[in-house]
């Protein structure tokens, strides 16, 4: 649910990167932080463990610019991927406007992808939201792994009907980081305009 601050002339959107542990959610945010001009972003906040695994969330605020007298702003979050942090994941989803699901190409992570995707649906349901009701895309990360699973196999598990826009990525090299971010942002803006016009 976007927040409009008429006094500050701002429209704020919340975008969440979701997915199994170590799939590359934090890497996506780090790459966006690295590639966006400093004047368009705030500090990146990371709440992690000593082993640099996300404990609560990562956070990156972005400012796009002004349209029609209002500045559009995006707040990017990641969730902790590890199974036992579900309560934290659910909290981060509150007020979500869009989601990028980051899947892992490793053969050993196919089940984790499926479980995390199901977990996303379950946690959204806690807020009475169906995944289909919010803008969402899939990013299949780590395509550079020598034993990366075929795209078809991952899509068969996550999106057998091929309804969801899906992107291949090597997030550590910034490959395929921009495209899903752009796609989900576009969906968020179009949906907002649809409701507000």
């Amino acid at each position, binding site marked *: *649910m976007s927040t409009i601050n008429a006094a500050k002339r701002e429209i704020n959107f919340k975008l969440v990167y979701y997915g199994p542990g170590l799939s590359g959610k934090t890497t996506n945010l780090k790459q966006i932080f690295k590639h966006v001009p400093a004047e368009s972003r705030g500090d990146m906040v990371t709440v992690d463990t000593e082993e640099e695994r996300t404990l609560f969330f990562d956070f990156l605020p972005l400012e796009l610019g002004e349209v029609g007298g209002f500045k559009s702003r995006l707040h990017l979050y990641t969730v902790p991927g590890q199974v036992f942090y579900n309560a934290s994941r659910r909290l981060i989803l509150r007020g979500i406007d869009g989601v990028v699901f980051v899947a892992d190409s490793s053969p050993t992570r196919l089940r984790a992808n499926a479980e995390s995707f199901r977990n996303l649906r379950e946690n959204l349901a806690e807020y009475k939201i169906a995944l289909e009701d919010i803008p969402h895309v899939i990013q299949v990360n780590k395509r550079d792994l020598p034993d990366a699973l075929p795209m078809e196999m991952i899509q068969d598990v996550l999106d057998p009907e091929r309804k969801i826009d899906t992107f291949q990525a090597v997030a550590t090299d910034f490959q395929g980081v921009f495209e899903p971010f752009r796609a989900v942002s576009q969906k968020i803006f179009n949906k907002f305009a649809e409701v507000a016009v």
Partner: protein
Amino acid sequence: MMSPSILLQDDSAEEVSDILDDFIRSCHLNYAMICDNQGFVLMFESAIWAPEAPPIDSLAALIVSNYAANDAIAKLLGDEDFTESMQKGATSGTFIEKINPRLLLVAIFSDTTSLGRTKMKSSQLIAPLSELVKESDRKDIDITNEWGEINTLMVDKLFEGKL
């Protein structure tokens, strides 16, 4: 379909700002802010004696997430919520009061702040603030058909020369 909500209108912003300024002055706070439960800052005010403000968006995201986590802990323990939320260090701290289910009033204090007064004053501010800052269906924003397209172009511009 979820609809956007307008929380702080132009006409009430000045009044809200005055209330926060008075809150800061009377309790000798460093900063006071109102944020929503998504971590978006609606209003932030700073004392003239306060050091340079930390990154406000980051501060709000952490405070709101921490508050939400505490709320979840209360529920796990069988309580509706914790009525008081305070963090205190050697020279600074935060005190949070719920305005309504969607909004929080946050006081950021120093070692010269009267905590008793801060708690009393913040509880007095809940009623007037909840009247001034609330959800609304008012749609007085000029969103054209091209609005989404222009915003997407601005996303492209963020990464100009980097692709």
